[in-house]
């Protein structure tokens, strides 16, 4: 019970911090002081107090977009184990629902983007659906591989199963999976090298361009959902990549938060040292990730 409360608390409160850490890391690389770590919280709060502008072309779909996305992401957050703790909700095949909830969110985000009638937003939406479509199989292959190792179909079991021992036994395969998952993490969250959230040219953006027309509380919701998504997918990655357990529940929670922050730093580092890929290259990278995960699966079968 305590775990569930902590789960909810962490899931609800931690996400914006991750964004702050990433920004801070990037600022550090650029030799700037950068915004405060808690800047994202401020942003979101400020947005909730702001008025909204709605385009005259939009309909209720435009308004529903952020809300459905948030609802779907929150539901997904309930399914994924954070650290060594089981998720509040868990059943056989919950990973399918997990993946499809993101799909639902994406459907609404992109539909909302199209609702504005802006060509830029349409462009972003097209990219978003295409890239995530290519990313999806990778996720499933990786999850099946992990499921096969753990012999279970529940995310909670699958993702808490990896251990240092497993790493020692099937290192090569795990490495491939982690690489694939990291690529998925970056792609799904629209980070460099797939997308640059801070760019100033709408033509080259993916996620940010889709939400150009949102304002006020809705935009706050979007920011928050994005951060939550980062946390949820990050948790999947962290669970596989850093399978350390202290044995004590509370210490494990601490460990998880630290690991997530470390992941945020890692993302920040990647964003600082890499340039954004050309849009045409992105599918190739995603297919490459699929191949990596498939190869990892083959190694497990062997």
């Amino acid at each position, binding site marked *: 019970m305590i775990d569930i409360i902590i789960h909810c608390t962490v899931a609800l409160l931690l996400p914006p911090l991750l964004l702050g850490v990433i920004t801070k890391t990037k600022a550090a690389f650029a030799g700037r002081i950068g915004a405060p770590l808690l800047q994202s919280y401020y942003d979101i709060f400020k947005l909730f*107090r*702001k*008025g*909204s*502008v*709605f*385009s*005259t072309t939009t*309909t209720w*779909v435009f*308004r529903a977009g952020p*809300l459905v996305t*948030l*609802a779907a992401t*929150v*539901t997904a957050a309930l399914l994924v184990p954070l650290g060594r703790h089981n998720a509040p*909700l868990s*059943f*056989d*095949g919950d990973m*399918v*629902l997990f993946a*499809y*909830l993101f*799909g*639902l969110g*994406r*459907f609404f985000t*992109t*539909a909302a983007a*199209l*609702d*504005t*009638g*802006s060509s*830029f*937003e*349409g*462009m972003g*939406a*097209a*990219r978003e*659906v295409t890239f*995530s*479509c*290519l990313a*999806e199989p990778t996720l*499933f*292959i990786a999850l099946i591989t992990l*499921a*096969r190792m753990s*012999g279970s*179909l529940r995310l909670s079991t699958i993702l808490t199963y990896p251990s240092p021992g497993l790493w020692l036994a099937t290192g090569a395969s795990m490495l491939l999976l982690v690489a694939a998952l990291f690529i998925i993490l970056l792609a799904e969250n629209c980070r460099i090298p797939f997308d640059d959230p801070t760019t100033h040219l709408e033509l080259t953006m993916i996620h940010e361009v889709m939400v150009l*027309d949102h304002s006020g*509380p*809705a935009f706050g*919701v979007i920011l928050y959902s994005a951060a939550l998504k980062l946390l949820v997918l990050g948790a999947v990655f962290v669970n596989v990549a850093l399978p350390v357990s202290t044995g004590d529940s509370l210490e494990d929670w601490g460990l998880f938060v630290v690991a997530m922050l470390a992941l945020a730093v890692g993302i920040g580092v990647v964003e600082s040292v890499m340039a954004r890929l050309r849009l045409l290259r992105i*599918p190739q990278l995603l297919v490459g990730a*699929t191949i990596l995960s498939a190869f990892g699966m083959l190694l497990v*079968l062997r």
Partner: protein
Amino acid sequence: MLVLVASSIGWYALFCLLGGTLGGIYQLDWPMPFGPALFAVDPLSALFLFPLFLVSGCVALYSLSYWPAAERSDSARLTLFVGVFTAAMVLVLLVRNGVLFLMAWELMALAAYFLLTTEQHNREAQKAGTIYLLATHSGTMALFALFSLLHRVTGSFLLPAPHSLSTSVTLEAVILVTALIGFGGKAGLMPLHFWLPGAHANAPSHVSAMMSGLMLKMGVYGILRTVLLFVDLPGWFGWLLLVLGGWSALNGIALAAGQRDLKRLLACSSIENIGIIFIGIGMALVGLQTGAQVLFICGFFGAFLHIVNHGLFKSVLFLGSGVVLHSSGTREMDRMGGLAKRMPVTAALFLVASLAICGLPPLNGFVGELFLYLGALYDGIASPLPVLALVAPLLALVGGMAAITFVKAYGTIFLGTARSTVAEHRHAADGPMVGPMLLLAVCCLAIGLAPLLLVRMVAPVVRFYSGADVNLADLGGLQIPLMPLTALNLLLLALIVVLAVCYRLRLHGLPKAASATWGCAYQAPSPRIQYTGTSFSEMMVNLVGYVAAPQRLKPVLAGFFPARTATFSYRPVELLLDRVLTPLFSWIGLAFSYMRRLQHGQLHIYVLYVFATLFVLMIWAH
């Protein structure tokens, strides 16, 4: 109207049957030398009858306002054939005599032909009708062979009892392959799908709904019925179905993504859904053959649920496309836009169905796919060589592409602003046509929220195949998460509602403003600047260029102010039809025209033919 009455009677009958023992048999002494005319209802036919009565009833209601008898002169013909079509499908499901089955089958196919060529003066519809008729009749020839072979094996024209047929390996293979050609062609399984997009696109929309939602399923029914006859099936058949299903699903949706014609898009997505159904059947058969019960159960549940579900949401989509067509006067999505403001109910229902067809929770499409995923995942952890596990990433890819397709369709049609003046000026309102659509969409949602309802209905069918009771709660360590699914779906809906209420309250206290869409500082935006559906899916279409292979005609631009006539055109190509079948036919036609010189009009050579025949026979007799 009559169809409506009939379908309600059918409903009543179905409920009686569901309430009863599900084993009604009615026998009629047919004077033909093919044995008695046997009609029976078993769980398998009941499974198909359920969406059939539901959808045909809704379609009948819909057509009252879609094709009003007062305004359209051809409505008598249309209504007649809708009735014949429905009746023939019911017959197909009920008869247990091979010859009668063929009769009902062909009646259905012919009625569909007349339905889809209702618009007599539409050249494209005529062409599509011709292709359809040729394809379906050739498929019927395969069925001639199928039922003749069954007759050879059993010595009777009555369909053998379930699980009673066993024969030599070769004959079994031939029977299965003929069934696959005959029924698979009707179901639109690739590569026999070539007739489908044109046919569904050009029929009146409610007919398309019936063809796609119901008639394609008859092909599936045929395969399921054939499979049911055998004592044990050869292992390769399940795999073959699986591969064909996967191939259809992937390529079907790839084709759909590249379409610009709304109804063609829906038609191609039918190919995809049929593919998914066949993946399920293939999985179940593989499970049956290898003794993996979980695969068997998951495969069949997935397939059966999807059969019903697809019937529901595809009907909503086609009916919705009819409303859209009425109001915009075109099928080309790139000329539409902004319809959601003028017909909010239709837009909402279309959205529900789009979500369902993408398999997204909390709608019914997800339930069927979930079973398939579960089967695949279970194979992934349990089988020594988890080939079937690949179904999961495949379905994920297909699902992703479905999302592209339907975001594109929904976004370009209903969202944004009207792209052409044609779409703008037509009279448009929701009208009474949305009633039946609403009913179907509510069914979609109900099944999505409480899948147990449908699962209960489908369970007897699975039991029919396995011969034993199915305990979904525990399948070799796997629990089918129906209750958690309901809970989570409700949670999701509740969350959405709560968020919406909060948001609304929040907005209430804040300043609001309305303005034009942010055009990135562009000062003179026009509706034509919007992203088109074609551009939306272009990236994906390019990735799967081998199937969709659109033809692009780029104008050559010369000078500083190129002529206005230079336009860019984009046309999706049907690979099989345009690149293979049409050239093949013209080649054969050419070969035939050489052979036709035998009839050259010279009498004395004709006399020579007579004597040549005489000589040949003499020599042969020797």
